[in-house]
């Protein structure tokens, strides 16, 4: 059966989705990823969806689920590289993925995760909250 590889990079897990996600594959990914988080005690999960051009409400929900589950297990989730069309679709569907952090590309996503981990040691505030 087809599986999406999950790579471990230091304290983070890296997932690059390069195929069209169908429901079964998404569910398997959710399952694998959460198991991996608990096994490796990862501090952050980075999901690259720059190659995904089609999303539906189910896919949006899976992303939200992964974020919420990781959060309970003390890992932050960053979704990077979302296509403009995908973003518009998700907003039109009413899915704003409030628990998920986002970044433009993998580099910025990694940076964001690093800041998150650094912040977790000092305080529990969000990244930009100190500026308001």
């Amino acid at each position: 059966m087809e599986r999406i590889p999950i790579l471990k990079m230091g304290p983070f897990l890296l997932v690059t989705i390069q195929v069209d996600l169908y429901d079964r594959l998404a569910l398997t990914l959710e399952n694998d990823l959460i198991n991996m988080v608990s096994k490796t005690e990862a501090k952050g999960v980075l999901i690259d969806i720059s190659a995904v051009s089609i999303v539906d409400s189910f896919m949006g929900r899976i992303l939200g689920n992964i974020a919420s589950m990781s959060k309970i297990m003390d890992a932050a989730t960053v979704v990077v590289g979302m296509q403009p069309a995908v973003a518009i679709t998700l907003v039109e569907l009413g899915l704003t993925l409030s628990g998920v952090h986002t970044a433009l590309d993998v580099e910025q996503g990694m940076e964001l995760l690093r800041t998150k981990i650094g912040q977790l040691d000092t305080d529990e505030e969000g990244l930009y909250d100190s500026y308001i």
Partner: protein
Amino acid sequence: MNKESAAALKGKKKQILENWMANQLKDAALRDDLMSVSELQQQSEEFLSTLLKAFASPNAEDTDSAGYESIHDILSEISITRARQGFSPRETSAYILSLKEVLSQVLEDRFKDETAILYREIISMNKIMDSLSLVTMETYIKGREEVILRQTNEMSEISTPVIRVWEGILALPIIGTLDSARTQVVMEALLEEIVATGSRIAILDISGVPTVDSLVAQHLIKTVSAARLMGAECIISGIRAEIAQTIVHLGIDLTNIYTKATLASALKMSFSMLSIQVSKAAQNGPVGSKQNFGF
């Protein structure tokens, strides 16, 4: 319309054309600034010969019949061109109506002694010409609408430029009312630009938006959410006192969105978000001297 009058009209084609041209030329509605006389003559001649051919067809009174197809095409062409060239409705319909007068004259000469036939022929000719002038008006208005539609599209495109104000900071000054269609254009333009430039912050400046109602606010929130999904943060700036009042009175929740009063303060905020420091350079010469600016 019977065969005799069709033949009579055909026989007098040259005279009809001459009188028609004379009619058009002496009319106050003539626009020789938009169209030269020779061009008009050529257009009229082509139209007249097609029309006379249609008159001779078996069911000449039915303007929807096959014989009139080419007439409709020519007329549509003429009125659409005129609509684009800026002719007024009166000037456009005068073209067809001035021909009616000439045709009546010819029929009158032909059936001088047979009043009953003359009456019937004039009525049927009038019917045809009226229906043709309706076609003219309809296509004229269609042409104008096309012009209006094109201008609307151009306006909405012109009024949504995405400006790169700094490395990693985009600004989008919105001018005019935001409706669903425009929000879509604005949103797409902004998101494309975010991807193209890799910008992390976008400033939406709404000082040019006259009023903000719940619908406009919803559109703004949608744009902000979409940008956030892609990993860029949005700041809404240019919120005037009356807009702030409306938003609060309508009970719109903007607490999850960064808002600033002016573009300058939004820019300042973006600098601190990106940890950029902008400071005055140390002055070596008198204030305003050219070498200070590195030109």
